């Protein structure tokens, strides 16, 4: 089957949704625009908050996508709105120090920040009222304060948050203002066509080869607006917004790896471990927004960030190291658990990259550098100190050979810091801030696109997602992705006469 558009956007997450909205005014001038999204669009009532069924419906591989080494799980959304359907809505502005370090010609911090602020307003970013902050978050705040750490509150993009705590399973109350709730619906109202369950296989000269999948009988979501089958879609301009894994993989499948030697390189992801502590009383933890505070004062010196978090039973069980009675005891104490997410600020490493296998499927190679290991270890130890300062009776330290540390044996923390039991494959590590692979830069020798997301040497092909990052952003990335996507859309609008 054949279709024809002026502009096709591949992916509907923070990047694709933003590009769709920003280009949508062109529809009034007769420009035909389509968004092709691999995942489904769920009806509001299908967001049940049940862990396994929602993970299966909204995440790639049900949330179990593994690196090639099988030592880290990567979480990436696969639905209308991409990963914005499963994030917590934390909305930080890009750090000036990082943008300077990126050193991309024609990419100024001021420009990116200004655009990020525009989307912060558009997506209702604000500080959650203190009455809606639960004890899991308050205890982190109090622990940090007692230790004189510079704890900060996350701005979040919520509207009418009921406090279900189920953000990472898709908000059942439609409170998170991701691209699935703001930019995509607006783009559709303006005339952009969004085609779900449409997997893009490859791109050749201004033609996309795609496959629309049928909805399985028991699956969630609406069927695609297109009949299941193979499609050839002609487009005058193509914007790839499939995320840091699928964007480079798609360009590789399309045969551009030789022309763009940096394709797939520069992958970073903020590898993370979930820390859990037990209090001697029930606390409000699985009611209320899960992510209200963060600590970034050690990002430069010790290479880690801490964020509050609250996960679900299976995810928590997986995150605790070990097994058996000790593990079960923490699980049985669920209503007394406090959680902290430790994220390592990783940097570009030559080994860490996206590639494809013989079938064209993406393969992510990732090894933990000594700096990342140190960041995770120091972050875990700092989290343990915060837990105890907040009154926890025992802490689960996954980096220790005997992971349970009681409040009476805090002196063990220094020993553990000196000799951590950091064994890849044993330690549960995951990542959700996937970045790089189609980096912006000067030319093909150092990057894949220019500062406006245009692929080097291919004037009709653009990238607009987190794969553009030349190195780790060291904060939650989505406002920065939207800002960069806005720049890409602006470039396409400016060049519309020649492109279209």
């Amino acid at each position: 089957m054949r279709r024809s558009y002026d502009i096709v956007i591949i992916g509907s997450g923070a990047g694709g949704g933003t590009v769709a909205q920003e280009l949508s005014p062109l529809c009034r001038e007769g420009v035909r625009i389509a968004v092709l999204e691999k995942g489904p669009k769920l009806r509001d009532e299908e967001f049940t908050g049940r862990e396994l069924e929602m993970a299966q419906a909204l995440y790639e591989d049900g949330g179990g996508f593994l690196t090639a080494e099988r030592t880290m799980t990567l979480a990436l959304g696969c639905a209308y709105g991409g990963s914005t359907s499963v994030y917590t809505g934390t909305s930080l502005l890009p750090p000036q120090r990082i943008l300077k370090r990126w050193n991309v010609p024609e990419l100024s911090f001021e420009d990116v920040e200004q655009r990020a602020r525009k989307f912060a307003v558009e997506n209702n970013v604000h500080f959650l009222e203190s009455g809606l902050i639960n004890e899991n978050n308050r205890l982190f705040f109090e622990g940090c304060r007692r230790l004189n750490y510079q704890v900060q509150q996350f701005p979040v993009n919520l509207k009418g948050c009921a406090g279900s705590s189920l953000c990472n399973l898709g908000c059942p109350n439609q409170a998170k203002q991701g691209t699935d709730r703001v930019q995509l619906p607006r783009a559709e109202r303006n005339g952009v066509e969004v085609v779900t369950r449409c997997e893009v296989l490859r791109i050749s000269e201004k033609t996309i080869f795609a496959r629309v999948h049928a909805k399985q009988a028991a699956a969630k979501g609406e069927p695609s607006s297109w009949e299941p089958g193979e499609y050839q879609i002609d487009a005058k301009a193509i914007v790839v917004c499939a995320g840091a894994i699928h964007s480079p993989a798609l360009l590789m499948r399309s045969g551009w790896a030789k022309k763009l030697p940096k394709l797939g390189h520069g992958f970073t992801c903020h590898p993370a471990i979930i820390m859990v502590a037990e209090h001697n009383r029930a606390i409000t933890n699985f009611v209320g927004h899960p992510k209200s505070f963060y600590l970034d004062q050690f990002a430069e010196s010790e290479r880690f960030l801490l964020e509050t978090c609250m996960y679900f039973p299976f995810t928590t069980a997986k995150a605790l190291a070990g097994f058996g009675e000790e593990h079960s005891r923490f699980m049985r104490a669920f209503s007394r658990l406090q959680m902290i997410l430790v994220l390592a600020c990783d940097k570009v490493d030559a080994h860490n990259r996206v590639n494809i296998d013989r079938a064209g499927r993406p393969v992510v190679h990732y090894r933990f550098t000594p700096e990342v290991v140190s960041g995770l270890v120091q972050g875990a130890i700092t989290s343990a100190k915060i837990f105890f300062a907040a009154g926890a009776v025992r802490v689960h330290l996954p980096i220790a050979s005997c992971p349970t540390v009681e409040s009476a044996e805090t002196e063990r923390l220094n020993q553990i810091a000196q000799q951590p039991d950091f064994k890849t494959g044993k330690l549960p590590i995951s990542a959700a801030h996937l970045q790089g692979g189609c980096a912006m830069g000067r030319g093909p020798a150092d990057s894949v696109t220019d500062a406006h997301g245009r692929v080097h040497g291919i004037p009709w092909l653009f990238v607009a997602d987190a794969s553009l990052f030349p190195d780790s952003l060291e904060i939650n990335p989505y406002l920065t992705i939207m800002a960069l996507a806005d720049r890409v859309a602006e470039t396409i609008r400016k060049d519309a006469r020649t492109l279209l």
Partner: protein
Amino acid sequence: MLSPVRPIFRAVVSTVVPEASNLDDQSWRELETLVEAALRDRPPALRRQFRLFLRLVQWLCVFRYGRGFASLSPDKRTRVLLYLQDHRIELIRCGFWGVRTLAFLGYYGKPETVQAIGYTADVRGWQVPR
């Protein structure tokens, strides 16, 4: 999918989550249905590796103890799994991590378990009286 390795898998689950040894047949079937559903959508190679790893556990015990994993005492089963979890070869550690993850998925994915551990998150959030 689990049929050829079911006894070993059940023994692994009961070692990883000791409470699972109290499950009745119906609960075991529910647990295994969740695991099979999770495996169904994964690459065929991963499913093969899962079964292969469980067979490796079985043969390791036959060589070491003269009996299969499921016939060992709980203490010996724990010792075997700790050995695999801390093995010097990363691939073996990863294999155990995968099996352990599926055991947790099956056990903590069951609605009764979620209730039993006191996890009562509700889509209505703060509106639910607690």
